[in-house]
């Protein structure tokens, strides 16, 4: 497998996630875009692990840690979105402007 196309696709996934975070209005959709970014990082970790043929398998182990942290992050993030929705009756991030005047 040639490395460079995979690296370019991982970079493209990362920038698509950035685009989603900046453009989406629904808070749950922003969390979906964050998952895309974490996924692109995972691809890079596993690819470099295979490329360097690491004897300690650091890349694969770190991608497992990233997946675990991402699961925790989604749980907390959705709990926060739920709390905001309960208080403001909307999941639109433009309306969460309590710190602005």
């Amino acid at each position, binding site marked *: 497998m040639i490395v460079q*196309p995979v690296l*370019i696709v991982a970079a493209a996934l990362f*920038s698509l996630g950035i685009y989603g975070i*900046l453009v989406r209005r629904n808070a749950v959709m922003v969390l979906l875009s964050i998952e895309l970014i974490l996924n692109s990082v995972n691809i890079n970790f596993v690819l470099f692990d295979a490329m360097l043929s690491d004897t300690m398998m650091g890349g*694969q182990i770190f991608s*497992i840690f990233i*997946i675990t942290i991402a699961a925790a992050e989604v749980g907390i993030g959705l709990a926060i979105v739920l*709390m905001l*929705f309960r208080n403001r009756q909307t999941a639109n991030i433009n309306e969460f402007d309590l710190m602005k005047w």
Partner: protein
Amino acid sequence: MEIYEIVTYFVLLLLLSTALRVVTTTNVIHAAVSLVFTLALTATLFLLLSAEFVALVLILVYIGAVIVLFLFGIMITRAPLGKNAELDNDKNKKAGAILAFAIFLLFSFILISGFSGEITIDQASSTQLLGEILLTRFVFPFEIVSFVLLAALIGGITLARKDDALINEDQI
């Protein structure tokens, strides 16, 4: 070109198109389902790189648990199902596209100029070895991660539940 390369390029192309659909579709359910396909294709890519255990963890944790949580979140926040033109911030669209494209150019330039070469998978990576390393060399981060999961569990429950006791105390 051998079949392995053809499959790899096919997976990469599908991965790009489904990821593009996650951020551009105007239907929230379609975005979540496209993310399922993106993650399944990522797992396929990991299988092609002979990282079976990571691929299985990705399928179990992401497609099994995280996507279900997302669908739950979409439905409980009463996001309008079906087509919804209000899903995007139109005034951010141009700036977001320019910034994302600039980041893409920067990253791909750095990665291409820094790394080249070809991966040859000569042996299957052993899940047994992965488990041994995880519980010897990386046992301390492993325990820390389990503690983080416990903290996230408690934090999620504390945030999301309706605190009736607290409300009653305020009324007294």
